[in-house]
C-alpha cells in the first residue's frame, strides 16, 4: 500500500510539476497565433524530456553522481567550464522568468504592480529552500500545480468545435498572416519549453538528494513515463484554450492576464481561483527548482559540498550561490524588464543550450565504466540518437530564426 501511494504521489507530482511559466506562456502564445497546428511539437518535446530525464535519472542512480560532476569528469575543466557558464546563464534566465511569473500571478489576484512583489517572491523561495525538506517542497508544489487541470476542464466547458480543433492538430497548416519562419521559431520555443535543461539538473540532482539506488529506477521511470505525458496534456489544454477563445478574436498573447481569460470565460471566479493557485504553484515550484539548480550546477562543477540533505552550514557555498542567484534575478526584474519577454527568450535559449547537457549524458549512459550493466539498450540508444539530431537541429536553427523573425514578432 505504501509503495502504491509512493508511486501515485510521484506521478501526480510529476504531472503538477511539469508545467512552468515557459510552458504556460509559450503554449498560450502558440495557441493564440497558430491554433493547435504546433501540437505535434509538444508531443515531440514530451517524448524528448522522457528520454532525457529517464537517462539522467538512471545515470545519477547508478553512478551516484549528478549531471555536472559527470560533465566535468568527462569533458575536462575547460570545456566543462564553458558548458557550466552557458547552462548557468540559461538557468538564471529561467529563474528570473519563474520569479517574475510568481509576481504576475499575485498581480492577477490583487491588481497590484508586480514589481512590488519581487522581494516577497524571492524571499519566499529562499526561506522554503532554507527550511523545507526536499521531498516536501517537491511534493507540495507538484500537488498544488495539479490545479492547472482547470485548463483541461475549461476546454470542455468552452464547448469548442472539436472537428476544427482536430483538423488543426492532425493536419497542421500555417494560419493566414503568419510566416513559415515564425512557425518554425515557435516550434523551437515549444520544444525548448518542454525540454528546459533545469528540469534535468534538478531531476538528476534530486536522485542523489533522495538517495536513489538501482531498485528505485522502476518508480523513477514510472514517474517520468506516466507523469510527464500527462503534464504534456496540460500543455496542450493551455494551447487549446487560447486557440478556442483568443485566436478567433485575433488576440496574440503578450501577458499572463490574457492566458487566464479563456479559463475565466469557461468557469468564472471558481475556475479563476483554481488557475491562480495552479500558476502560483507551478511558478513557485519551478523557481525553487531553478534556484536549487543554480546551486547544484556550480557546486557540482567545483566539487563543493552540496545538497539539501546536508545542513546549510555543511554546504555553505552551495547556499551562497543560490542566494546570489536570487539577488541577480531580483536585480534583473528591478530594471522593469517584462517577465513574459524573459520567458519567451529563456525557452528559446534553453533549446540552444540543450546539446551541452544532452550529449554528455548520452555518452555516459553508454559508458560501462560508469553504468556497468545499466548502459542504454538498443531502443534507448536509437531514440537517444534520434533526439540528438532533433536537439542539434533546434539548437542550430534557434538563433538565426530569432533574428529573421524578430523573436517571433
Amino acid at each position, binding site marked *: 500500500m505504501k509503495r502504491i501511494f509512493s508511486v501515485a504521489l510521484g506521478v501526480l507530482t510529476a504531472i503538477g510539476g511539469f508545467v512552468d511559466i515557459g510552458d504556460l506562456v509559450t503554449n498560450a502564445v502558440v495557441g493564440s497565433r497558430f491554433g493547435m497546428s504546433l501540437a505535434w511539437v509538444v508531443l515531440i518535446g514530451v517524448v524528448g524530456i522522457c528520454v532525457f530525464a529517464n537517462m539522467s535519472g538512471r545515470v545519477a542512480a547508478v553512478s551516484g553522481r549528478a549531471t555536472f560532476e559527470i560533465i566535468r569528469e568527462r569533458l575536462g575543466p575547460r570545456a566543462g567550464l564553458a558548458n557550466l557558464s552557458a547552462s548557468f546563464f540559461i538557468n538564471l534566465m529561467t529563474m528570473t522568468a519563474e520569479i517574475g511569473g510568481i509576481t504576475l500571478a499575485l498581480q*492577477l489576484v490583487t491588481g497590484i504592480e508586480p514589481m512590488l512583489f519581487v522581494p516577497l517572491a524571492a524571499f519566499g523561495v529562499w526561506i522554503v529552500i532554507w527550511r523545507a525538506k526536499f521531498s516536501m517542497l517537491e511534493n507540495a508544489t507538484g500537488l498544488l500545480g495539479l490545479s492547472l487541470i482547470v485548463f483541461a476542464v475549461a476546454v470542455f466547458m468552452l464547448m469548442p468545435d472539436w472537428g476544427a480543433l482536430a483538423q488543426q492538430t492532425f493536419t497542421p497548416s500555417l494560419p493566414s498572416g503568419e510566416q513559415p519562419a515564425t512557425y518554425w521559431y515557435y516550434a523551437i520555443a515549444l520544444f525548448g519549453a518542454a525540454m528546459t535543461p533545469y528540469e534535468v539538473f534538478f531531476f538528476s540532482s534530486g536522485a542523489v538528494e533522495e538517495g536513489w539506488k538501482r531498485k528505485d529506477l522502476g518508480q523513477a521511470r514510472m514517474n517520468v513515463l506516466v507523469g510527464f505525458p500527462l503534464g504534456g496534456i496540460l500543455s496542450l489544454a493551455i494551447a487549446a484554450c487560447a486557440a478556442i477563445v483568443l485566436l478567433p*478574436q485575433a488576440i496574440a498573447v503578450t501577458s499572463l492576464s490574457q492566458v487566464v481569460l479563456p479559463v475565466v470565460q469557461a468557469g468564472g471566479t471558481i475556475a479563476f481561483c483554481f488557475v491562480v493557485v495552479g500558476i502560483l504553484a507551478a511558478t513557485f515550484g519551478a523557481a525553487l527548482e531553478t534556484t536549487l539548480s543554480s546551486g547544484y550546477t556550480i557546486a557540482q562543477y567545483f566539487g563543493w559540498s552540496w545538497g539539501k540533505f546536508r545542513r546549510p552550514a555543511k554546504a555553505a557555498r552551495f547556499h551562497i550561490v543560490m542566494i546570489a542567484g536570487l539577488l541577480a534575478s531580483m536585480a534583473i526584474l528591478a530594471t522593469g524588464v517584462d517577465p513574459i519577454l524573459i520567458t519567451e527568450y529563456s525557452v528559446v535559449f534553453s533549446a540552444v543550450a540543450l546539446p551541452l547537457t544532452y550529449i554528455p549524458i548520452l555518452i555516459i549512459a553508454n559508458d560501462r565504466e560508469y553504468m556497468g550493466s545499466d548502459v542504454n539498450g538498443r531502443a534507448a540508444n536509437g531514440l537517444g540518437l534520434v533526439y540528438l539530431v532533433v536537439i542539434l537541429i533546434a539548437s542550430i536553427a534557434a538563433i538565426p530564426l530569432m533574428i529573421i523573425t524578430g523573436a517571433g514578432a
Partner: protein
Amino acid sequence: MGDAPRRVALACLAAAAALVLSSCASTGSRVSDAIDSAESATASASIALGLYGDGRALPGLTDTVLGDALTELGSAESDLSQLGPIGNSGAAKQRDAALATIRAATDAVLAAREVVAAGGDPDDAVTVLDHVTDALHDFGGSSGS
C-alpha cells in the same frame, strides 16, 4: 568611367534603392504590426470587461487585463511615433490615421478602467471597446495587414 568604378556606382545605386524600398516596406509593416497589437489589446480588454460585467471576473484580474492592454497600446503608439519623418505622403497619412485610431483605443481602455475602479456598470464601456476593436480591425484590413 572604367568598369570597376561603374560597378561600384551601380552597386551603390542598387543598395540605395533596396534601402528606400525596404524602408517603405518597413513603414507599412510597422503600421500594420502596431494596429494588430492594438486590436489584440482592445479585444482582450473587451472580453475581460464583459466577464467583469457578468460577475465572472474579479476586479483585480479585470484591472490587470486593462493595465496590460494600456501597456500594449502605449507600445504600439510609441512604435509609430518613432517612425520619424516619412517622405511618402500616403504612408505619412496612414501612420497619422493609425496613431489617431490607437489613441482613441487608449482613451476607451482608460475609460473602462475608471468604470472598474468606480465599481460602475461596464456595459457602455464594453460597447465602446467593441467599436474601437472593429475600427482597428477595419483599419488593419484596409492597410493590408
